[in-house]
């Protein structure tokens, strides 16, 4: 197992190099840059190409791409220096550190809610296959999968606000300073995202349960006269969940990078919103650092999932 982990970590290095190159080039082929944007904010200054050139040079954007890339990667590898924001002039890592807890809390809560919904209703749907309950769950599943989470999120905000005058406190509060206020802020986005993310997991749970319920050992359990709860929870569900774990892990990776719209709707200052703002402002160092960080986390989560997979199913051995 140790060799496997080391090998996987080494395999991740080329992936990170490709991602770093891709994001570096992608942000530079986007039209416009931060120097031009800063000039655009000052109409009288726009007829001054010399000033714009000075700004571009100050940001290091006047040099060849390869030199810019080498400098960026070199500083990360040698000193852990991800660069400085063009706007705040602060290290971009500071922004990641500030915003990561918000995204992590959002993703974790969403995962818990989505897994709870998925396993509960996926199991019910499989156990009561082709009953009205099964059809109801499957319709709900399709609904959850097809409706955008930002729309559900907006409804959760707007309807109580305009009908009852209730809105969770605006302006992010940390769970360490105001746990109740923080919970009020997060429960809406957890539900909004959890409903959508539960859909695929629920389908997987249902199909796996249907397969497992037809296995001999389950039939044996029924034959022994065990109670339904023991058969479902003790024998069937435990085995059906192994592939589901993989899916949940991948979902968590997606969640970390896919919370932009919900963060915007709920005023949650996470990494998604930070990346979106940085893209709009062409703040290259911030975009690059955010994407590289999220990619690294995604790769690590995938590795973790594979390890957990082996732990759950002793038959799986990595050689």
């Amino acid at each position, binding site marked *: 197992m140790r060799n496997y982990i080391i090998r996987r970590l080494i395999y991740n290095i080329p992936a990170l190099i490709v991602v770093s190159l891709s994001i570096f080039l992608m942000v530079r082929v*986007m*039209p*416009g*840059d931060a120097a*031009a*944007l*800063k*000039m*655009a*904010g*000052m*109409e*009288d*200054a*726009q*007829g*001054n190409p010399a*000033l714009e050139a*000075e*700004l571009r040079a*100050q940001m290091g954007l006047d040099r060849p791409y390869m030199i810019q890339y080498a400098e960026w990667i070199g500083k990360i590898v040698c000193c852990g220096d991800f660069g400085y*924001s063009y*706007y*705040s*002039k602060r290290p971009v890592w500071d922004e990641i550190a*500030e*915003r990561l807890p*918000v995204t992590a809390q959002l993703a974790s809560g969403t995962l818990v809610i989505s897994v709870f919904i998925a396993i509960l209703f996926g199991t019910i749907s499989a156990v009561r296959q082709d009953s009205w309950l099964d059809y109801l769950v499957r319709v709900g599943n399709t609904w959850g999968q097809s409706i955008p989470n930002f*729309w559900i999120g*907006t*409804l959760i*905000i*707007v*309807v109580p*606000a*305009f*009908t009852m*005058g*209730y*809105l969770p*406190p*605006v*302006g*992010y*509060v940390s769970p360490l300073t105001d746990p109740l206020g923080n919970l009020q802020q997060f429960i809406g986005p957890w539900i909004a995202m959890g409903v959508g993310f539960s859909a695929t997991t629920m389908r997987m749970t249902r199909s796996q349960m249907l397969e497992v319920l037809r296995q001999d050992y389950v039939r044996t359990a029924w034959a022994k006269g065990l109670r339904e709860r023991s058969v479902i929870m003790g024998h069937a569900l435990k085995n059906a969940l192994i592939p589901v774990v993989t899916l949940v892990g991948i979902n968590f990776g997606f969640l970390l990078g896919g919370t932009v719209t919900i*963060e*915007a*709707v*709920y*005023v*949650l*200052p996470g990494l998604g*919103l930070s990346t979106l*703002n940085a893209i*709009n*402002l*062409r703040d290259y160092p911030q975009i690059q650092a955010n994407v590289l960080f999220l990619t690294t986390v995604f790769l690590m989560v995938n590795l973790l999932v594979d390890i957990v997979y082996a732990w759950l199913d002793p038959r799986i051995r990595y050689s």
Partner: protein
Amino acid sequence: MGVSQAWLKGLLLASAVGMAAACSPAAAPGGGAQSGSGAAPAAGGNVPQPSQPIAQAGKPKYGGTIILGQRDTPRNLNYYEGVFASQVVFHHYYEPLIHFDQTDDFRVDFPVKPWLAEKWEQPDDKTWVFTLRDGVKFHDGTPLTAEGVVWSLEYLRDTNNKFPARSNLAAVDTIKAEGNKVILGLKAPTPNFLNNLNETYILPKHIFDQGGAEALSSKGVGTGPFSLVSTEPTSKTNFKKFNDYWGKDADGNKLPYLDGIQHIHNMDGSTQQAAFAAQQLDIIPFSDKAQLDAFQRRVKDVKIAKFIYSSDPGLAINFDKPNLAKLEVRKALHLILNRQEINENFAGGEALLSVSGISAIKTGWVPTQEELAKMPGYRANKEEDLAEAKKLLQQAGVPLDMPLVLITPATFGNAPQGEQAVNQLQRFGFKAQYRALDDATFNKEERDGNWDLALKLHANAEPVRARNWFHSKGGTNFGKLADPEVDALIEKLETTMDINQQKVVGRQIVDALMAKQYSIPLVTPAIYDVTQPWVNGWHINGAIQLYLNPENAVSLWVDTDKLPAARK
């Protein structure tokens, strides 16, 4: 109302606010200062009237905190860095030497009032002497001195610092201090020079001495009515009343009235509306009349004030495109567009008909709304205009299905006008395409000339701004207009000191631009500020959106008796 009805309305409202997020007012690239006034007339209707502060009840009271929300976060607390998004908070803690007087409608003649400078004089055409007010202190107790002001202005215009705002001082040759006086020597006589000082804030030298540029970017120490308590770009920025502030009201009472101001960051339009409905925000802006009407049906106990932009939108023309270089084609485009229809659809009939170069709000400088409403291109009856347009296009040898690309920044509050203009051009037969772009892309496309028409600001209440758009060397003349007659008129305006003569030259500029159709005016819409019933003293004519300027920061007060229990 039944539960199901409430939900249905909620669903409809959710759709509306979703669109509001996309269309909510935002700074237009290249927009420069924007301002407006209340009591807006309908297009073709009355002459613009001076605005009034939003209705207030009784005498100002001390206390209370105003809560504002916005999409932007303060990324850098140094105004000179030119980070537009940070302007949301600058006005609380930085102050300029002089300021536009916003107690009345300042947009016609731009009266200037003393701020950190108590008075000023002009011993000759090239010298301005500002006498500083006594007793002005920075928030940490350090007194403001003439030497400090000189440092701040020199720091701004130091080319090594690469501050975009240094263009504010482009006309200045020398800056020196004498006692409590700051003396600016100009390179040449410059009419309306004071306008450039309106937003030239004075930064603290002693903070720079202590911690360099980094301290200026992070500490936010100024002389303004509110001092910075904390700023978390991820959440909130809090200000508290500066007890040693120099300002007093007309009765000699110390200013400001408020105990504090709080900004909530990262809020999109729909969240701001929901937060206002839940009484967690005090002031929100609307740029779309239909959205405002929908909002008002849900939230009734509010005060609403309206003002007209003093920066007018229109379609800039790319003169590199052979067809558009032809006068007949430009005139045809002007004739095809139906401003009355745009006004009804986009602005609820409350916009002004716009002209080129100088804002339609500028009474006495531009044709009146009545005159415009009778002119070809502006009039309600379009049959004659459309027939004339066809004739002009045939004369020019241009096909009636000519392709046209109109670009605009997607965040521009006027973007829906562009979409409607494209619809009208398509109805006429053109293969017109509408492209709403993010700010950076718009900037790039505009500079690269990948457009035929660009929806942007093309007229301002400050006539000298016409240089940017229409002079051959104008900073934002990306359409490459080059007309010696227009250049000469703009240069003449820039050196005309007498205000009455300026009006004459200004009108000549407008007439020249309109005769040759160097841009295609649309309509100048109203902006609406909605405030909670306890908010008083809000001057909407000077503040664009929710950027509190010094005037508003000191005039705002809260009727604490009306505050909801949760806010007391």
